[in-house]
């Protein structure tokens, strides 16, 4: 079986130790936290505008929420990622049902604003857990999308 060029190059002698490479990347990531804060500001502001529209565009909301979900946890803002993921679930369900639920969408956007502005890292405490449970109930009002 012929190796890919990537495999042939990557497995040469003289590679950097995994622990060194990972540590260097984590250190670099730490220097980008300020940039993340600015990017999350922008994305959460978009989500609040989109969710507050008279007829929310759930596909646009889904895409912005998916981007935010992919960023928060990389900097330790696990709850921001979790709630953005919950918003993705909601938007997916609404899209499949051809419906909109502005109050539920807005509740997610406002929760993201609150946690982001408080800079809540990790999974938070009882209050945050209560908030996530409440948001999950809003998502559960709509049927889960199914495999095609």
């Amino acid at each position: 079986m012929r190796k890919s060029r990537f495999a042939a190059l990557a497995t040469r002698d003289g590679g950097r130790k995994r622990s060194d490479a990972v540590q260097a990347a984590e250190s670099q990531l730490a220097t980008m936290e300020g940039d993340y804060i600015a990017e999350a500001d922008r994305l959460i502001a978009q989500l609040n505008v989109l969710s507050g529209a008279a007829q929310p565009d759930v596909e646009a909301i889904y895409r912005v929420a998916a981007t935010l979900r992919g960023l928060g946890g990389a900097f330790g803002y696990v709850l921001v990622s979790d709630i953005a993921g919950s918003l993705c679930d909601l938007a997916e369900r609404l899209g499949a049902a051809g419906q909109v639920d502005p109050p539920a969408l807005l509740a997610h956007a406002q929760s993201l604003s609150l946690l982001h502005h408080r800079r809540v890292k990790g999974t938070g405490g009882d209050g945050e857990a209560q908030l996530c449970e409440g948001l999950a109930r809003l998502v559960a009002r709509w049927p889960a999308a199914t495999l095609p």
Partner: protein
Amino acid sequence: MIRSGGLRLDGVTVLLADGSKFTRKLVAQMLAEFGVGTILEAEDGETALDALKRGPVDLLICDTLVENPDGITLTRMIRHDNGATYRSIPVLLLAGHTRQADVIRMRDCGASLILAKPVAPKALYDRLAWIARDPRPFVDSAIYAGPDRRHNVGEPPNGVARRQMDRERFADQTKSSVSHDEIMAILRQADSL
């Protein structure tokens, strides 16, 4: 087999396709710290395909939600582009969220591996290492083209455990910073309808 304890990525060209400029910057910084020689960026699927055609590219890292076409469609196009030099390059798909409608498409598109975002350095490095030692033959049939999905190459990197470790890494902040009144103010307006 990775010798000398780690990946050697100088001389490797990685193409990174993601619609989010910040996400591209984030992943590109990780790759640079891993020692990747050349990192190319594409903001959409069409630009990524153009870069592949110009080549050579050794690895494609692509977000599933990149547009025009999306990452799943792009991977399928690459795998079915008969005669193209890039047809069998490793493809690592990044997924910010996976819709139910995309689960089967992702399984069948021919990607080498899928990594759920958020991307952490350890998880990304381990995926690259796994791809580097991936011995699966390339399957080419009418319904599927890509690394053999049935070939047992041992356990892939444990994404669940890694994700849990990432959560634990940031579990130091366990005191609530939101009050009961704030929670109720947000949820009551949604529950009342």
